[in-house]
C-alpha cells in the first residue's frame, strides 16, 4: 500500500507541477488596468456587491454595451460586499485598480483622499445624462469632496424607510404609522412575547448607529448636522429623547437578540415574523419580496416630526467611479454613461429591485407599479421632505460612527450607558473632527 500511495502521489505531483508551470509560463498575469490589442480596448469593471442576485444583470448590460461598441471589451469582476473596501485599499496601495468600479458613497471620501478617483462631472453633463440624474443625490455626492467635484455617479437612489408587515398590521386592525406616536403605539400593540413576536427590530450590531441617526433626525426634525457655530447636533435634546425612546423598546417591544443585529439578523427577524417593523433602506426590497412574497409587507415613509416635516438622513448611494490610474478613461466614461442611460438604468434597477437614479427611468411603469419604490419616490419628491447631509467627508466619519460609537450604542441598549452621555460623546467626536477638517480645508 505504501508503494501505491507513493506512485499515485508521484503522478499527482507531476500533473500539478506541469499545470502550475504552464500557468506561470503562459504569462496570463495580465494587468488589471486593461489592455489594447487589434483595435479592441479592454476595460476592467469591478462590481462592489457581486453575487447571483446582481452578476447576471451586469453581464447582460455588458453584452449590450459590447454589441453597441465593438471596439471596447468589458472585463467583469464580482467582489464580495464585505471585503470590497479592503480590495480597493490593497489595489490602490499596490497599484492595481480597475478602470471603473462600483463604490458606495460611505467610503468614497477615503478613495478621494488618496487621489484614487477621477472627477466625472463631464459624464453627468453629457448629452444623454444632463438633467436626468436626481440632483438631490448629486448634491449629496458633491458634499463628499472638498473640491465639490463629482467623483461617483449613483446607479440607484436610496433612502431609509419604515418596512412593516402589512399582514400583521391588518390582523391587528392597525394603520401604518404616520407619526412617531403612531409608531410607538403600533410597536406595543404588535408585541406578544409569548408568541415570540415583537413590534420592532432594533439594529444594535453592524450598521446600527447609522440606522439610529436616521431614526433620531426623523424624530427630532433637526435639519442640519452642525449648528451655525460648527457644533454637531447629535446631542440636540430632541435627538437624545429619540435615542431614549428607541432604547426603551429594547427587550420589551423588540427581541433581546437585537443588541447584536446586523442587517441580516434584522431582516431575518422581519421576514421570519419575529419583528413587525424595521427601519432600513429600499435595498432590502428584493429580499422581502423573495422571502415573503407580495401582500405580506409594505413600506411607509419614516414617521414625520411633530411639525409634519419629514427629515431624512441622506443615504449613501451606490454607484460607479472611474479610477485615476486608468489608462482608458475615455472608454470607462463611455461605459459609465451607458450604464446610467435610461434603458440600462431601468433594466438594472428593475431586476435588482431598486429605485433608478435616472429620472426618466423612474417614470417607467414597473416603478409606478411597485408600491415600496413608489413610496420612496414620492417621499423624495415631496416638498415636506428635508434631507440632512451627514458629514461623510470627514476622514474619521466611519471610525466614529462604526468602531467608536457602535459598541457604545450596544452599551446604551444593555443599560450600561445613558442616552445623554452617549449622544454627548458622539457629538463631541464629530464636532472635533469637523473643526479639524475645516482647518485643513480653508474655504
Amino acid at each position, binding site marked *: 500500500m505504501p508503494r501505491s500511495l507513493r506512485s499515485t502521489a508521484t503522478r499527482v505531483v507531476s500533473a500539478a507541477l506541469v499545470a502550475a508551470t504552464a500557468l506561470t509560463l503562459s504569462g496570463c498575469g495580465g494587468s488589471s488596468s486593461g489592455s489594447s490589442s487589434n483595435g479592441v480596448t479592454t476595460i476592467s469593471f469591478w462590481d462592489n456587491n457581486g453575487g447571483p442576485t446582481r452578476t447576471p444583470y451586469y453581464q447582460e448590460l455588458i453584452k449590450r454595451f459590447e454589441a453597441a461598441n465593438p471596439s471596447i471589451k468589458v472585463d467583469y469582476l464580482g467582489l464580495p460586499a464585505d471585503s470590497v473596501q479592503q480590495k480597493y485599499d490593497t489595489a490602490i496601495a499596490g497599484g492595481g485598480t480597475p478602470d471603473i468600479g462600483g463604490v458606495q458613497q460611505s467610503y468614497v471620501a477615503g478613495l478621494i483622499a*488618496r487621489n484614487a478617483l477621477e472627477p466625472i462631472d463631464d459624464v453627468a453633463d453629457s448629452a444623454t445624462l444632463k438633467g436626468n440624474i436626481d440632483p438631490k443625490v448629486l448634491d449629496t455626492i458633491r458634499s463628499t469632496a472638498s473640491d465639490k467635484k463629482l467623483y461617483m455617479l449613483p446607479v440607484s437612489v436610496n433612502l431609509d424607510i419604515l418596512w412593516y408587515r402589512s399582514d400583521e398590521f391588518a390582523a391587528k386592525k392597525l394603520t401604518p404609522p404616520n407619526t412617531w406616536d403612531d409608531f410607538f403605539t403600533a410597536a406595543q400593540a404588535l408585541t406578544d412575547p409569548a408568541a415570540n413576536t415583537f413590534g420592532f427590530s432594533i439594529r444594535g450590531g453592524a450598521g446600527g448607529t447609522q440606522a439610529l441617526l436616521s431614526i433620531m433626525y426623523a424624530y427630532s426634525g433637526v435639519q442640519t448636522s452642525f449648528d451655525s457655530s460648527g457644533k454637531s447636533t447629535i446631542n440636540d435634546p430632541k435627538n437624545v429623547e429619540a435615542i431614549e425612546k428607541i432604547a426603551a423598546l429594547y427587550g420589551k417591544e423588540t427581541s433581546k437578540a*437585537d*443588541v447584536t443585529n446586523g442587517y441580516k439578523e434584522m431582516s431575518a427577524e422581519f421576514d421570519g415574523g419575529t419583528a413587525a417593523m424595521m427601519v432600513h433602506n429600499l435595498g432590502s426590497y428584493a429580499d422581502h419580496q423573495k422571502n415573503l412574497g407580495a401582500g405580506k409587507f409594505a413600506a411607509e415613509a419614516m414617521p414625520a416630526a411633530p411639525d409634519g416635516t419629514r427629515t431624512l438622513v441622506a443615504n449613501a448611494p451606490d454607484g460607479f467611479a472611474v479610477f485615476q490610474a486608468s489608462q482608458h478613461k475615455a472608454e470607462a466614461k463611455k461605459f459609465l454613461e451607458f450604464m446610467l442611460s435610461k434603458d440600462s438604468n431601468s433594466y438594472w434597477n428593475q431586476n435588482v429591485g431598486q429605485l433608478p437614479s435616472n429620472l426618466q427611468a423612474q417614470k417607467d411603469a414597473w416603478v409606478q407599479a411597485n408600491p415600496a419604490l413608489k413610496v420612496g419616490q414620492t417621499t423624495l419628491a415631496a416638498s415636506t421632505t428635508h434631507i440632512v447631509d451627514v458629514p461623510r467627508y470627514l476622514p474619521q466619519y466611519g471610525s466614529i460612527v462604526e468602531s467608536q460609537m457602535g459598541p457604545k450604542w450596544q452599551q446604551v441598549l444593555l443599560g450600561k450607558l445613558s442616552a445623554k452621555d452617549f449622544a454627548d460623546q458622539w457629538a463631541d467626536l464629530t464636532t472635533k473632527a469637523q473643526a479639524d477638517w475645516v482647518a485643513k480645508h480653508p474655504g
Partner: protein
Amino acid sequence: MTLTAPVPAPVRPAPTRRPRRRGWSPYLLIAPTVVLIAAFLLYPIGSVFYYSLQNYNVTQPYDDGFAGLANFRHMFTADPLFWQSLRTTVIWVVAQVVLQLLLGLLLALIVNERFKARGFVRALVFSPWAVSGVLATGIWVLLYNPTTGAAHALSLMGIGSGDTAVLSQPTSAFIAVIVAELWRGVPFFAILILADLQSVPADLYEAANTDGAGRWQRFRYVTLPHLRGAIVLTCLLRAVWEFNNVDLIYTMTGGGPANETTTLPLYVARQALTDFNFGYGSALTVVSFLILLVFSVVFLRVTKYNAGRD
C-alpha cells in the same frame, strides 16, 4: 535566545546520545524554507514594524509621517480597549488550547481503538477541520440566530421560548464563539495526536502488559510520554494560531456586544478595515508579535522542548 543549549531529554526513552554529522547537509535541507521566508515574509513583516512608528491613516494622507513611539504611548497610556482586548485574548487562547487539547486527546484515544466502521467515524469527527472559515461562521451564525437557528426549530416543536439570543449577552456570546471554534479546532489536535499515537513502539505496550499495567498506567507511563513532544508543539502552534484567529469572532459578534468579546487581533482588524489607521494597527500588531515571541521562548524553555534534542 540560546535555544540550542543542550537540554537533557527528560521524557522520551531517548536513544543514546551520539554525534551527528556536521557540515552543509542541514543547511541545504533548510535552505528552501529559509529562501521562501526571506523572499516573501521578511519585507512584509518588516514593513509592519516600520509603519508602527509612523502616522499612517489612508484617509488622512496629509497627517502621514514619522511618529516615533507615539502610537505605543497612546496604546499603553490612553487606550483602555487595548488592555481590555488583551485580557479577552488571553482568556480566549487559554480556553481554546486547554479545551482543544483535552477533547482532542480523548477523541484521538477513542478513535484509535478498534470498533466497527472506524474509518467512517474518523472521517466524520475530523471533518469540521476541513470546513473553511467563511462556511464555519456561516453555519454557526445560522445555528445561533434566534430566527433561523436551533432554538427557533425547537420552539416550532414546542420546546423553549424561541427568543434565545446567545450572541446578545457578553458571557453567552463568548461561550458560543468558543464552542463554535472548538468544533473546528478539536480535530486539529485529534489528528496530530492520532498520527503520533501510531508511532508508539508496540514493544512498549507489550512490556507494560507484561508488567501487569492497567489501561490508565499504560496511558500514563507509555502513551503520554511518547506524545509529549507532539502535544507541547501542537499547544504552542495552536496558542499562536488562536491568538491571531479572528474570523469566527469577527463575523459572529463583531467584538460585541459593547466590545466585550473584542480580542487584540480583532481590534487590529477594525483599525485596518473600518478606521483605515494602519499606523496604529501596525503598532498593535508589533505588540502582539513581541508578546507571542516572549511567550514562545518561555514556553519552549519551560517545557524543555528543544529543537536541538536528539
